[in-house]
């Protein structure tokens, strides 16, 4: 996997990698001692105190646990936007922007998948990127 070319423009530097097919992966930590999977990768395992933490490409799909459409945003954030908790298939919960039709919001517990997109922009207009999730379009 290759690290992104411009880490500086990510909201959470070092958390996104791209596989051979240029598909994004969200990177977490795997504890070498107890197997705990955590996002973002910690320096120490909160469970067993092992400092041996390996890079782990997290599951790219999960269930939409909950979300909110934010209208009152902090300064510099375009609103409205949707923010969600996604329960990844490998047991990790991720807080992530949700890309969805805000006029027809999705229902909870649907399957969502990882994408990378623009979160907001710096004052000079440079986009800030982050992981995001969007509903999976199931073939009917």
């Amino acid at each position, binding site marked *: 996997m290759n690290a992104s070319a411009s880490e500086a423009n990510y909201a959470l530097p070092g958390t996104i990698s791209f596989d051979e097919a240029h598909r994004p992966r969200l990177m977490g930590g795997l504890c070498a001692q107890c197997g705990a*999977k955590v996002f973002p990768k910690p320096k120490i395992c909160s469970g067993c105190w092992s400092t041996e933490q390996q890079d782990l490409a997290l599951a790219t799909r999960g269930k939409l*646990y*909950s979300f909110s459409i934010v*209208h009152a945003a902090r300064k510099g954030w375009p609103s409205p936007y949707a923010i969600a908790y996604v329960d990844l298939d490998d*047991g990790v919960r991720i*807080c992530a922007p949700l890309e969805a039709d805000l006029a027809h919001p999705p229902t909870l*517990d649907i399957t969502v998948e990882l994408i990378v997109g623009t979160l907001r922009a710096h004052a000079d207009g440079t986009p800030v990127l982050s*992981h995001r999730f969007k509903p999976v379009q199931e073939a009917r």
Partner: protein
Amino acid sequence: MRKVAVIGAAMGRIGRYPELMFQDLGWPAIKGAIEDAGLERKHIEAVYCGSAYGGRLAGQRALRPLGMTGVPVVNCENACSSGATAFREAWYAIAAGRYDRVLVLGIDKLSMLGGGVLPGQPEDWEVDVGLTMPALYSMRAKRYMHEFGLTREQLSKVSVKARRHGALNPYAQYQKPVTLEEVMAARLVAEPFGLLHCCPTGDGAAAVVLCAGELVAQSTTKPVWVAGADLTSGRFVTGYRDITTAEITERGAHEIYEETGISPQDVDVAEVHDAFAIAELMYYEALGFCKKGEAIQLLESGATSVGGRIPVNMSGGLLSKGHPVGATGAAQIVEMIWQLRGQAGARQAEGAKVGLTHCTGGGIAGLDHGACAITIFKT
């Protein structure tokens, strides 16, 4: 451990006072609490001050105009629970025999921060991708609605009750009742919440004087006894977590009921941390006032309203009385002292003998909340 009572209490009306200096927000509450106790400033052996946004030396700054520095001043920051944390430490210091008379101050001036959404926790990765406090609570609400069938209209009844009570409280930031329609139609903040499902930001200060049991007889007021004061922090969970259950509050409640031998059925009146409408419902359940999923039935039955079996947030709660973050725990305690003395005027819970205050908050990724302080008082 020695018995400890609250013998003095005072607060100002919560509101937005941008023109007032921080110290001038604080000293009237301090002076009021000492005078209420029938004491003089020389009797206060130590001061515990809770503030979340007040910056360094919040306690000393509020004490200076009264010439009251020169004693130990302990400044406590624990987000929404700052004032309640200060109270708990003061109670413990007297119970353990270190001091006889201690003052607790809770103070914050949120108008210093400008308006709108409060700044997020620094270095918090959830905040960095767009999480705000209203959004966090609204995700709890959305999941709760999904699992238990709560409707937005039912959720709105929490705000209507809060404003109905707050209209009876001259210390409340908002003293105007609202209708269900007004709550439903208010400007959206973080769906499903509109503006009236969220507490306002405001400025406030509240103070109490605590006294060792042996010296209570010298006081002029009716003492209100501290049955117990619990403080805990949220547990760090990295995987799936049920956000419809207030884990930290449930655990804190269990601890204090165990410690005091008081059960939820014994509680006559409560002030709970209703920063957002869903929170009040979740805390009915976590504090054991009803079973999981049944909070809205408890509210709709009138049990938690003025005149009910267990009136909750007679002050108007955070939704109506206001939420000057670090002051809130102390303001809840002042209200409870007035309730248990029978001095709460139009919003009095008749005959209340056992009261509970509950203060929790502080958004921090992976924890239900940063801190939770629960205190039980009895006459």
